[in-house]
Structures are given as structure tokens and as C-alpha cells.
């Protein structure tokens, strides 16, 4: 079991690093999905199978798919990749790397201070469920309210100028706009990316 953990962890770290350095959005997304899958394996090795399943279903399955949808929708194209190339310089990683290293160091220090013991007894879904409906009931309710809020907010934000009558999720809206010949879809190829480039502020950090 330990070896499973270390391998999955290594894959997770590696694929995350790859994701961070990609220029193409879709490539990065794919790497991110791999990373999530690896983390799910880590969860499984830690004895939380339920969580591993949830991770794959919700995180990799729903959220990442959403990302992919939007990226596809934006239809950025080659120009976007060029832009990324111009933006992403190696020296850009210096600052964040330092900060992340510091954080890592702090975490390691804190971990080392506490006594570490290795267990791999699984905590099954039954216990999780009991906990959810027991002490964490409030949290469940709040989470549902949060999701409702997100739903309404996303709908409202995505509704746009309400040119077309829309209901349901924002995906519909964009499709309808595409049909109506919205400018959004044509962006990236000819119009705005180039023009918007001119009033960029130079990198601050």
C-alpha cells in the first residue's frame, strides 16, 4: 500500500507541475484531470474510498468538464497560445516559487513538530454518512443553500442582455447567443484579442 501512495503522489505532483507550465489551456486542463485522478488514488490508499469516488465523479467529472466546456466555448485558438507565450516567462515563476517554498517549509516544520503515526484503517462511507447527518447536518443545509445561490448567481450572470428568452443553466444562454450570432464566439480569431493587447499593463510582480 505505501508504494501505491508514493507513486500516486508522485504522479499527482508531476502532473500538477506540468499543468502549471502549459501554455495551451486545454493541455493544462488535461494535466489537471490527471492530477485529480492521482489524488483520488491517494485518497483510496488512505482508506477513504468514498471520498476517492466523490473526487472522481464530482471534481474530475463535473467541474473539470465545466472548465473544458467553457474553454471550448471561448474558442481561443492559436492567438491565445501566442499570448500566453508572451506572458509566461520563466522568471515569472520566481516569486510564487519562493512563497510556495516558504509555505511548504512552514508546513513541514509544523508537521515535524507533531508526532506522526502511520495508520491505514479505512473510514468507511457509513461513518461519513452518519457524521453528515449527525453533527454536520447544519453544514449540509448550508452547502445546499450555497449551491442554490451559485446556481442562481451563475444563471443571472450568464443571462447577459436577455436578448433571447432563457431559462435554466447558462449553457443554454450561450448556445442561444451563438445561434443569434453573438460576438463572443467569433472572439479570439479576429476581433478583440489583438486590440485588447494594446492596453495591457506591464507585469507588476
Amino acid at each position, binding site marked *: 500500500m505505501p508504494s501505491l501512495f508514493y507513486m500516486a503522489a508522485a504522479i499527482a505532483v508531476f502532473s500538477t507541475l506540468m499543468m502549471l507550465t502549459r501554455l495551451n489551456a486545454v493541455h493544462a486542463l488535461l494535466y489537471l484531470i490527471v492530477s485529480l485522478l492521482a489524488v483520488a488514488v491517494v485518497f483510496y490508499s488512505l482508506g477513504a474510498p468514498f471520498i476517492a469516488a466523490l473526487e472522481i465523479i464530482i471534481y474530475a467529472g463535473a467541474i473539470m468538464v465545466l472548465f473544458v466546456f467553457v474553454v471550448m466555448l471561448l474558442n481561443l485558438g492559436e492567438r491565445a497560445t501566442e499570448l500566453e507565450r508572451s506572458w509566461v516567462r520563466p522568471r515569472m515563476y520566481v*516569486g*510564487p516559487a519562493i*512563497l510556495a517554498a*516558504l*509555505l511548504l517549509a*512552514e508546513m513541514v*516544520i*509544523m508537521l515535524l513538530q507533531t508526532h506522526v503515526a502511520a495508520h491505514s484503517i479505512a473510514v468507511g462511507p457509513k461513518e461519513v454518512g452518519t457524521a453528515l447527518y449527525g453533527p454536520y447536518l447544519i453544514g449540509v443545509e448550508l452547502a445546499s443553500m450555497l449551491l442554490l445561490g451559485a446556481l442562481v448567481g451563475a444563471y443571472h450572470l450568464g443571462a447577459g442582455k436577455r436578448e433571447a428568452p432563457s431559462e435554466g443553466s447558462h449553457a443554454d444562454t450561450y448556445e442561444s447567443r451563438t445561434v443569434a450570432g453573438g460576438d463572443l464566439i467569433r472572439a479570439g480569431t479576429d476581433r478583440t484579442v489583438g486590440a485588447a493587447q494594446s492596453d495591457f*499593463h506591464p507585469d*507588476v*510582480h
Partner: protein
Amino acid sequence: MLKGLWLIPTLPLASFLVLAILGPRLARKAVAIVGVGSIGLSALASLLIAGSFLASPPPGYAYIQTLWTWIDVGSFQPRIAFYLDALSLLMILVVTFVSLLIHWYSAEFMLDDEGYSRFFAYMNLFVASMVTLLLGNNLLLLFLGWEGVGLCSYLLIGFWYTDPVNGLAARKAFIVTRVGDTALIVGLFLLFTHLHTLDIQELMRRASQEWSGGTTLAVAAGLLLLGGAVGKSAQLPLQTWLPDAMAGPTPTSALIHAATMVTAGVYLIARLHVLYSLAPVAQEAVAIVGIATLILAGLSALTQWDIKRVLAYSTISQIGYMFLALGVGAWSAALFHFMTHAFFKALLFLSAGIVTNALHNEHNMFKMGGLRKKLPVAFWTFLIGGCSLAGLPLITAGFYSKGRIIWEARAAASGSTALWVLSIVGVLLTSLYTFRLIFLVFFGDAKSRVSRKPGYAMKVPVIVLGVLSILGGFVDTPWFLGNVHRFSDFLQTSLPPPVEGQIHGVSELGSEGFVGLAFVIGLYFSYLFFLRRRNLAQALTARPFGKALHQFWFADWGMDWLYDKLFVQPILWFARVDKQDFIDLLYTGIARLSELFYRAVRTTETGRVRWYAAGIVFGSVVFAAIVLLL
């Protein structure tokens, strides 16, 4: 009857309010009735009160009327209270009566002026303030009146404010007297800090108990109060404002700068005579100021060509006599001279007003002449007034009052021969410039045409004053001339008699004789220079030494120039240098500093999400570090 004491300052005050608010809408006649009438009623009230006081004097010859408590803070409770004794009674009688005459006179004099109601409003406010000053029971109320008369003086000197020269003169008067007022305030502080009261009677009582003769505190207080008196009464070194104050209307000059306000300093010192008895050094200073001013102003008066300026310098000189009397401890002599001076100086100013009015506002004496025939009333009254001023022996009031002072300058314990001789020289000078004035204006060939003759309202007051200038002296005569001492007896109920010193050498008779002699000599020389052979005077001034002296005396012994160099120029220089106001820089500096900080902080607000995200990360690193390390 004495209960009506409060009416005396209140009536003019009420009239001021009426005229200030309704004045522009009232007809000239109404304004005159209100303005003059209030003073008339006030004078009547003081007359009645005087009668009651003299007939049945209150216990201790002093009457106090308290109206209300003004301030009530801890142990400091000055009240609005009026104190009537011989001194204040005398002064309010003179002030209200002379004011009445002058107001009546100015009802006609100022008839052509646009600011008719404004004039009377100011004059009434002045009388109200002056009476408050005189009747005030505590130094705070006195100071209120003091400031009030200063204010009215400013307002009235600059009455014709459209001419900047008048404004300048008014400002000069105010600022110079302000210097004196500051000394006065510091003196009040000193008195209050050490004696814990400002009530005058109480103050004098405590001072005589706690301060033995000659203590530094008493001397300091005395000198500071002298400073205040010097400013208000235009003595050395603060006399520079009075000649320029002649820019105001003539009735103003008559009232304020001859008869009343300038005597406020005399009153102050007389009122606080206990303090001065406790501080002989301060009292000597008073005498020295008096004698120096006397001579200085007399010499300056000799060189002036403006008729009113001669009279101004003459006022300064005569008040010098009063200060001299106060300085040697002859309190009642000083007030005697005050009374007679009020009469003849007001008279001189008013008839000078008749003259200038008649000659279309011509002030230059050398352009006048031969008015003897054309303006007989003016001539005769002016002559009487002038003779009284110079001290024509035996028949004029001035002779008796001045003679008394001169004798006391010698005879009093703190008198000296030097003072006596100098004051007689002063008589000579007075006679000289007075008759110069009379001869130049009324005798000789006529140089200007007379256009306007005075009316009834202008003639009667001057005639009344003329009569008073003669009769006023007979209330107190030396022992060999009738031995009347009504006046000094009356005043001795509140002011102590002078301390007599060793008298040897000259007797009072001899002193009076010398005075008369000085008068005659002055008259003769004046006659010689200004009537008989005018070219003699011109020859004298043509020579370089004479010319320099003439100019020096004309310019008030260079004091204006001195003050300009000493005070005015440095302040102006500093104001120029400080144009950027480097004191203000401190405050703008603070503002600029905070602006700098603002700009610095502003750069962090870029509106860019990445920047904020970096900030969050950085902050969390810092916090984690703190948690770890601390």
C-alpha cells in the same frame, strides 16, 4: 436721587442703539434731537445727582450702585457696579456737560454731512463708554469703558473713511493706544494675580495692607498702568497718534481728543492713587513723563501750520501738566486742571471749527488772517480760550489751575526746583504758540474769504464755554487771591491732599508771579514774531540751524520716523519674507506628507486581481510565520 446713577451711561447707550438701527431712516432733526437730547438728559441726571450728593452726602462720601453680577467664576466675581465719589462725580459732570455743548454744536456743524446719524451714534456710544469708564467700580468695567472709548475714537477719526489718509490715522491711533492697552491688561493681570480682586476699593485696601511701600510688585503694577495711561492720554512715548487724529471731524477732536478720552489716563492714575503712593518710583515716572511731554509737545506746537494740530500738541502738553501734578501727588490740582482744560480746550476746538467752517475747510493758519472783524464770536471766544490756555493772570481759569500745579511741582514732597522751572518754561511756550495762533488767524491781513457765518447752535456752546473758561477757575484760588478752596475740599473727600515738602526760596506768591511773567514774555515775543515783524520769524527759520530745529520740532521730534524705523519697517520686512508663510508650511507640510503616503499606498491598489492574490499569499505566509515563530 442717587439711584438714578445708572441712567447716566445708559441714556447715551440707548440713543446709540436707536441711532445705529434707525438712524438712516430718521430725519436730520430727529437724529439731532435724539443724539443731543440723550446727552442732555444725561447731563441733567448728573446735575441732579450732583446736587443730591452735595446736599446730603452718602456715608464715606461714596455711593455704590450694583446692577448685576457680570462674571461669576470661582473667586472672581466682577459686578456691573457704579461707584460715585467726588472724583467720578466731578468727571462725569464735566464730561456730560461738555459733551452736551459739543453735541449741540455738532448738530449744526455736521449738518451737511451724509453720515449725520452715524456721527451722533458714534458720539453717543463714546459718551456712554466714557461714563462707564468713569463710574466703573472694578477695573474690568473700567477696562470695558476704556476699550469702548478707544473703539469710538477709531470710528470717529476715520469717520470720513473714503479718504485713506483718515483710515490710516484711525489705525495709527488704535494701534498706538493698543500698545498702551496691552500694558494696562498686563497690569490688571498682575494686580489680580497678587491681590485676587479687581474691585477698585477692595484693591486699594488690600494693596495698602499687603504691599509695603516700594515693593517691586507695586512699582511694576504702577508702571504698567502708567503705560496704559500714556497710550490713551497721548503722552510720551505714545503721543504720536494724537496729531494725526485731527483728521476726524472737529467736534470729535473737541470731545474726544481734548476734553474726555485723553483724560482717561489721568483718571486711571488718580483713581488708583493708593497704588501710586505705595510705589514712589512709579509716581516719579509719572511726573517725568508729564514734564517731558509738556516741553516736547510745546516745542512741536510752535512749528505747526495746521490750526488743529497746534491744538492737538497743546492738548498733549496740557495733559503733561496733569501728569506732572499726579506725579508729585497733587491729585486735586491735576483734576482742577482737567476741568479747566476741558472747558478751554473744547472751546478752542469749537471756535477753530467755526473758523475752518467759515473758510471752506481751510486749516492752514498761514492762509488765514484778519478774521477778527469777520467772525467776532469766534474771535472773542478763541481769545478767551487761548488766554485761559496760556494762563492770563487773575481772570482766566487756566491761570489758577496751572498755577496750582506749578506751585505743587515745587512745594510737594516729591517736587523739585527742576520740575518747577521746567513747568514755567512750559507756560512760556504755551503762551508763545497760543498767541502765535491767535495773531496768525485773527490779526493781520485777510488772506481767505469768509463764506459762512456760524449759526445759533454753534455760537451758544462756544459762548457758554467761554464763560466757563473764565469763571471755572474761581472755585479754587490761592490764599492771597481769595483763598477759595471749594474744589480741593470737595475732592479731598476721595483724594488725599498733596504731601507738602520743604518750602524755601520761593513762596506761592512768587511762583504765581513767575507764571504771570512767563505768560507776558511769551505774549510779547509772540506779538513780536507774528504780528509786528513776521520776517523775523522767517529769518530765524531760514538759517540752517533754525531750519533743522524747525523741521525736527515739526516732525514731533522725529518720533514718527523713529517708530517707523524701529517697528513698522521690520514688521513689514518680516511680512514680506514670510510671504510663503513658513509657519503655515508646518500645516501644509503635514497635509503634503499625508498626500505622499496616500500616493504610496495608492500604488498598491492596482485593480488587478493577480496583485491582490499575491498580496493574500504574502500575507498568509507572514501570518503563518508569526504563528510558528511566536
